[in-house]
């Protein structure tokens, strides 16, 4: 490696520098520190996104191929940087009302984005693990920035313990994998597996199961989802959005590359059945339990568990036939469609939480008292349920179609279950909408969410409608990017 090759990790270097810059600016104790830091962080992330687009050539790697800068990594890098910027902007109001020193908060978000970027680019299980831990540690701290004192203490303790536990499981699985293959590089593992190690090798099997369980925690798949509702309820809403969207997308980016590149050869029908069953249980349980929730954020937590079930379908189908890039693009597109939608919903939930509105009952009459948020939240919930003309409709349809298309249609029944789950989810979203529009509140005090929140929600809403009406650029980019993974 020469110094000249450092440009390959330039975006990562810039983001790391950005985090340090934020911390140093914070030390200056500026009178309008929040505004300045929010500006620096969001603009910094966006500019890095543009730099990555301009700078990165195709398919180069550094550090002996453990870190790769291909189209796939680039796609996710840009997505994470934009998502990070959205979270920063969404946080502005929350930070202003709850934190005296905003520096660490923004710096941690930037660090978490750095972790995500490396997760998508890693081609070595150790690099991937370190990046995952950078993300996890940032999130451990971020979730506990909450006013919600007794609840958050319990929730974040739970989150840290379970997180550490799952990291340990993951590490154990990785070490066993190393034991079998004597390498940590994805492509090296694939090469060794090609040489005749099959799933009948018990150590490999155990390591795969451990990896699946470890990632199951990070992705919040059933039965590893128990931390989700508590954290969603207690964490500051923008951070919940960050958890629900960006960190989940990062985990999927890692899992997809790892499983496609390292294990592509050993994928068999059994794998599809195991992961398919995991997907089925995850979506069904998440959506059924969501019906019973009274707190909007807990409901969204379970609904996000259900969404993970949909997103696991392409992982299950991976390796069944040659349509890997189509499947991957389905996953990538739904991560964006679902992610943008979730941002709209959490931006609304966040601005309502500032007025101490948390439960579905608190949302009574919002259609009258704050018509704009009522409309935006309705649009967001419809998009989550997968109704036109929002992003959620296009991305869900696309995802289901590409999954069903795999391998002569044995996945059609999994898709059928996913479609049934969409109907269940529509029901509990409609309950919220009914509460907002059809129940007359006892007191109809206007809720003023302020200009900032209005503008943020509006921009996100336009994005959701835009992607819903014309998704072709994102889909074709996703498919092109997916092509750079070696299946």
């Amino acid at each position, binding site marked *: 490696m020469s110094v000249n090759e450092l440009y390959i990790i330039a975006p990562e270097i810039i983001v790391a520098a950005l985090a340090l810059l934020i911390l140093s600016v914070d030390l200056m104790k500026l009178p309008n520190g929040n505004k300045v830091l929010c500006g620096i962080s969001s603009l910094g992330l966006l500019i890095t996104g543009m730099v990555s687009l301009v700078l990165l050539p195709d398919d180069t790697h550094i550090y002996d191929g453990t870190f790769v800068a291909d189209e796939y990594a680039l796609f996710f890098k840009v997505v994470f940087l934009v998502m990070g910027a959205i979270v920063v902007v969404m946080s502005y109001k929350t930070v202003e009302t709850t934190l005296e020193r905003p520096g660490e908060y923004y710096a941690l978000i930037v660090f978490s984005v750095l972790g995500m970027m490396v997760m998508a680019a890693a081609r070595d299980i150790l690099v991937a693990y370190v990046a995952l831990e950078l993300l996890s540690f940032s999130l451990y701290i971020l979730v506990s920035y909450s006013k919600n004192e007794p609840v958050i203490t319990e929730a974040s303790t739970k989150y840290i313990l379970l997180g550490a536990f799952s990291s340990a499981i993951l590490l154990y699985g990785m070490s066993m994998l190393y034991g079998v293959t004597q390498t940590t590089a994805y492509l090296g593992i694939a090469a060794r597996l090609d040489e005749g190690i099959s799933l009948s090798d018990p150590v490999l099997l155990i390591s795969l199961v451990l990896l699946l369980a470890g990632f199951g925690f990070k992705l919040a798949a059933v039965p590893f989802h128990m931390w989700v509702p508590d954290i969603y309820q207690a964490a500051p809403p923008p951070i919940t959005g960050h958890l629900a969207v960006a960190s989940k997308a990062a985990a999927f980016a890692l899992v997809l590359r790892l499983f496609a590149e390292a294990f592509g050869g050993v994928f068999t029908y059994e794998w599809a059945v195991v992961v398919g069953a995991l997907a089925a249980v995850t979506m069904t349980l998440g959506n059924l339990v969501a019906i019973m929730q009274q707190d909007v954020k807990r409901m969204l937590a379970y609904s996000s568990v259900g969404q993970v079930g949909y997103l696991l379908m392409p992982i299950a189908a991976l390796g069944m036939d040659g349509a890997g890039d189509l499947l991957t693009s389905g996953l990538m597109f739904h991560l964006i469609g679902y992610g943008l939608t979730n941002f709209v919903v959490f931006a609304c939930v966040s601005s309502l939480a500032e007025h101490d509105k948390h439960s579905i009952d608190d949302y009574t009459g919002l259609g009258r008292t704050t018509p704009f948020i009522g409309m935006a939240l309705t649009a967001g919930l419809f998009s989550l349920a997968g109704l036109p003309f929002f992003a959620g409709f296009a991305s869900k349809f696309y995802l289901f179609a590409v999954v069903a298309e795999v391998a002569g249609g044995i996945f059609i029944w999994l*898709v059928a279950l996913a479609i049934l789950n969409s109907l269940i989810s529509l029901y509990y979203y409609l309950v919220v909408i009914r509460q907002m529009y059809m129940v007359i509140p006892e007191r109809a005090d206007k809720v003023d969410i302020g200009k900032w929140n209005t503008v943020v929600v509006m921009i996100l809403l336009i994005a959701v409608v835009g992607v819903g009406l014309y998704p072709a650029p994102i889909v074709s980019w996703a498919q092109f990017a997916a092509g750079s993974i070696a299946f």
Partner: protein
Amino acid sequence: MMGILSANILIPFLAVFVLVALPSGRPNLVRAIAIGTGGLSFVLSAIAFFSYDYNEGGYQLRESYEWLPNIGIGVTLGIDGISAVLILLNGFIFLAGIVMSWAVTPRNKDFFILLFLLAAGVYGTFAVLDLFFLFFFYELAVVPMFLLIGVWGSSSDFGNFSRTKEYGAMKLVLYLTAGSMLIWLAIIAIFVEAGLGTFNMELLASTELSRTFQIVFFPFVAIGFGVLAGLWPFHTWSPDGHVAAPTAVSMLHAGVLMKLGAYGILKVGMFILPEGATVWAPVLIGLGTVNVLYGAIAAISQTDLKYVIAYSSVSHMGYVIMGLATLDPIGINGSVLQMISHGIMTALFFALVGGIYEQAHLRDIRVLEGLAKRMGVTAAFFGVAGLTSLGLPGLSGFVAEFMVFVGTFRTYPFLGALAIIGAAITAVYILRLMGKVFFGPLNDQWTHLADPPKYQQATAGILAVALLGIGIWPFPLIRLIDVGVSDLLQAMGGM
């Protein structure tokens, strides 16, 4: 260069964005925009109707835009004889509905936003030749109903139980989306089974799908769309939903939206899964007959005027389903004509009932008596709609139902006989209702009633004239429908 069909879909859509951007508190401006949009889109639908060349047949006014080329989704537009007629119907009822909602309060802006989304969805469903977009527009037409009913609708209290508008809205949307989940699955299954990597309906229709596949998936399509068409036993959302809905929404929903269901069975079920349709036709026609009889018998025992009309809708949609399932050219012609006839007739019914309810604040037919003495115009138009409903010659219902009967007698004579009994029961409840509610002795408590405002009378009048016009001279519609039907039967294998 934008074509007529895309303009037809985009104009209500654009009106939505204009209204969203409009500051609230300008009800008159909103009304002006609404009327303008309705008028313009009626004109466009008429242009589409008249520019369809029935000598040539096939799909016309084609437009095609790429959308997601990698899995073969495109905005492909084009109409055949059947959709040309249905688009005209939508333009007509949509405009009438807007006029009837002139005085909607509160928040008429939000009301029209949702109404326009619904209209765009209906236009799109009729005009599109791509399964993905068919589903897209279909859902777009269904979902706004939830808020339209729940916010602007009305609840019914029957003393010992009540049907709230929230209940009606929730029931309607859950039933219809449950149906659309079946459609969604069927669409994806068709896409996978055909293996062409496209959602284009013409290409899919020209592929031979395996017989087993067609037999398995036709019920998904038939039930999925059938829910919206009011197919028994999946019809129970329809009375509750239609009664709870505000006038214009009932008009559009019973008048046009239910036809989307029948149209879907025809366009997806019969075009793409012809063998499945042939196998299942006896079941479908049986259910249609149950629809006719069950709807009519249920209508007899209702005490709420709007419930009578809603159940009569269920009954009349039975003729539509029967006609389709005959797979006989005359039967299908009658079925499509019945869609038009029933669409206009129900819209007229709901418009008039809305006018009565606005003043009387109740719809109980045990209490309403002798309204003709105070509401002469309403009574006259109600008479026209009622006589259409029971199939009096000279009105559109006669022509349509007659053709359905002919088609049924040629295929399933026994069911044809049962369906005629249904028409007789219709006569019982319609005539009894008219005799009591309009022409009975005037009750003192109704002396303050008067005919609705002139603009509402004029709307009702135009609808009534249309019923009469089609009844006397249905040929301009039939010749278009017939072209579509022969295209369909040819596609199904020259039966």
